[in-house]
C-alpha cells in the first residue's frame, strides 16, 4: 500500500497579523507547526502502513523551512518526504496548490491512498483535498472519521455528516480528508527522531515537476486577495436587571419585538 500524506506548515497561533501591503500573513516571530488536521492524516497513514504494509510518503509545498514539518513526519513514522519549494510556487491559492501537489504526486511511482487534513488552520478553506482528487481524476471522500478496512482495491470508510455517519466504499486510488476524531496522533520516538535528523529530503522545484511557471504560485491562482480585514466585533448583548419576574417579562417582550416568539 503506497500512502501519500499532504502536510502544510502553518503559523502556530490563532492571533495572526496581516501585512496590509501584501495581504499576506506576517510569519516573523511566530513558531511554525504542522497544520493540526494534517497530523491526524499522517497518523492514519502510518496506521494503514502498520496494518497493511507499504510505505508513507509525505509531501509539503512551502518555503525551505517547511522541511521542518517533513522531518517531524519522519520522526512519527513517515518513510519518505518530498519538499515542493520554488519561488514560483509562492502566493499560490488552493487551485495552484492542488495543481502543484497533483503534479508531484503523479511523479511518484505508485499511489493508492492520498490523505489530507480536512482543512488548514490558516487558510481554512478545505479545498485542496477535493481539488487534488479532481486533478488526479480519482475518487474523493471528505471528513473521514474511520477507515473500516481495505480489501481488494477497495477501501471502506466512515465519514462524518451532520446527521451522523455515512459508510462509503471507494475504489483505490482515492483521496480522503480526515477529521480529528479519526485517531490520536502518536508522539515521536527516539529512533524516529534520529532517523528524521539524518533524513535527506529532496526538494522538487518547478523544473523537476515540469510545470509551466504560469500554472503555479500567484500566476497560476484563480483568485486574488484584494483586501484582508478583521471583522468588526459588534456587541449587541444586553444584561437585564431587576427582580426575576420583571426580568422574565422584559425578556419575553424583547423576544416578541424581535419576532423570535
Amino acid at each position, binding site marked *: 500500500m503506497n500512502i501519500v500524506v499532504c502536510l502544510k506548515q502553518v503559523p502556530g497561533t490563532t492571533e495572526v497579523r496581516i501585512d496590509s501591503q501584501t495581504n499576506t500573513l506576517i510569519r516573523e516571530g511566530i513558531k511554525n507547526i504542522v497544520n493540526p488536521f494534517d497530523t491526524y492524516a499522517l497518523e492514519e497513514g502510518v496506521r494503514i502502513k502498520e496494518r497493511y504494509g507499504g510505505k508513507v510518503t509525505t509531501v509539503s509545498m512551502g518555503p525551505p523551512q517547511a522541511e521542518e514539518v517533513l522531518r517531524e513526519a519522519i520522526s512519527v513514522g513517515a518513510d519518505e518526504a518530498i519538499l515542493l519549494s520554488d519561488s514560483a510556487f509562492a502566493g499560490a491559492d488552493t487551485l495552484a496548490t492542488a495543481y502543484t501537489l497533483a503534479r508531484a504526486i503523479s511523479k511518484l511511482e505508485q499511489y493508492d491512498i492520498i490523505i489530507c487534513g480536512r482543512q488548514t488552520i490558516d487558510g481554512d478553506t478545505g479545498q485542496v483535498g477535493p481539488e487534488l482528487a479532481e486533478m488526479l481524476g480519482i475518487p474523493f471522500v471528505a471528513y473521514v472519521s474511520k477507515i473500516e478496512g481495505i480489501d481488494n482495491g477497495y477501501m471502506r470508510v466512515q465519514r462524518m455528516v451532520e446527521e451522523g455517519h455515512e459508510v462509503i466504499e471507494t475504489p483505490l486510488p482515492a483521496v480522503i480528508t480526515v477529521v480529528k476524531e479519526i485517531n490520536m496522533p502518536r508522539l515521536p520516538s*527516539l529512533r524516529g527522531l534520529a532517523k528524521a535528523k539524518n533524513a535527506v529530503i529532496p526538494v522538487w522545484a518547478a523544473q523537476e515537476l515540469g510545470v509551466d511557471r504560469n500554472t503555479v504560485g500567484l500566476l497560476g491562482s484563480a483568485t486574488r486577495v484584494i483586501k484582508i480585514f478583521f471583522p468588526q466585533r459588534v456587541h449587541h448583548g444586553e444584561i437585564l436587571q431587576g427582580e426575576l419576574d420583571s426580568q422574565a417579562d422584559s425578556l419575553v417582550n424583547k423576544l416578541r419585538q424581535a419576532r423570535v416568539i
Partner: protein
Amino acid sequence: MEYFLTEQQKTIKALARRIAEERILPVRAELDEKEEFPWAIMKDLADADMFRVFIPEEYDGLGGGCLELCLVVEELSRVCSGVAISYAATALGCSSLLEYGNEEQKQKYLPDVASGKRLAAFALTESTAGSDASAIKTTASREKEGYVLNGTKQFITNGGEADIYTIIALTNPERGSRGASAFLVDKDTPGFSFGKKEKKMGIRASTTRELIFRNCLVPEENLIGKEGMGFIITMRVLDRSRPGIGAQAVGLAQGALEAAVDYARQRIQFGHPIYSLQAVQHMLAEMATQVEAARLLVYAAARTIDSGAKDFTEEAAMAKVFASDTAMRVTTDAVQIFGGVGYMRDYPVEKMMRDAKITQIYEGSNQVLRSTIALELRKRRARRE
C-alpha cells in the same frame, strides 16, 4: 545552568518532557485518586523508545547509561513521580541482568524490555528484612531440575504488573548474606503468585505488591551470576539505582517549585501578588537553589557511574540523600506558599508532598545511607585519599 548534555541527551530529556506534559499531566490526578497502574502511559513510553534508553544497542537498546535514565525519570517525575517510578522500576529490575547476566539471559530478556513489551521488577525486601537486607528468609533450594523458591517478598514496585522479576533468595541459609543468590523469575512460573496490593500515601499510580513463592521451580539457567553472589549483586544494583531515585526527587522538587512560582505570581493578598513579599521570595530562592544543587549532584553521580568508575557507593548515596531531603523540603514549602488551597486535592502540590516522602525511605533509608557515606568517608581517610 549549563548541564553539558549531549545532543542525544537533550533529545531524550525534551521528548520525556513532552510525554509528561501531553500524556501524563491530563491524567495524573485521576491516576493518584484511583491508584491505577498507568498502562496507557507505559505504552506511550514504549512507543517513544524510552525503555530502550538504558539497554545496550546489541539488545535493541539505544545504549544510554545512568544519566540518560535519570533524565527521563526526572522529566516524568516533574509531572508525576508515581508514573516515573513505574518506569524506573523496570530499569532496576534488569540492572542485575545487565551487569551480571550471561549472554543467553540477556538475549532472552533484554530485547523485550527494550521494546517495552515486558516490564521488570526487583525484589529484595521482606517483612523482616528492610534496611537489614541480610535478614531475608526467602529460600532457593537446589534440586535436580533447578531451584525451588519459597518465601514472601514485600513492597515490590511493579509487583503483579511486571513480567520479569529479579529475586534475591538464600541458596545457603547457614551462610547468611553470603548465601544469597539472584534469580530471574517469569511472571507465569507455577508456584509464583501475588499478595495484596498496598494502599499508599504517595506514588499511588505505581503498584506495590507482595510476591509469594510456594515451591516455585526456577530453571538453573535463571541464576544470575553465581550462587552466593546475591548480596554483592544487590549492593551493586542499589548503588547504580540511587541516582535514579535522586532524579525522581529532583523532578518532583522542580515540579513543586514551578507550581509555587506560578501561584505566587498570581495570588493577590494585601493588594499585591504574594511574590512581592520578601518572605515568599526568600523561600522560593532557597527552593530553587536547593533544587539546582540536588540536580547537579545527581548528574555528577550518574556521570561517575557512566564513566566506568569501580566504586561509586558514596557518590550514589550522597545524590539520593541530598535530592530526597530537598524534595521533601521543597514540596512542603510549595504547599506552604499555596496556603490553604495547597492542602486541597484541587491543586497538585499536596500530591507532590505525599509523593516526596517515599524518596527519603526507599532504596536505602536516608539514615542508613548517611551511615554508608560515613563508612566510605572513614575508609577513604584511612587510605589517605
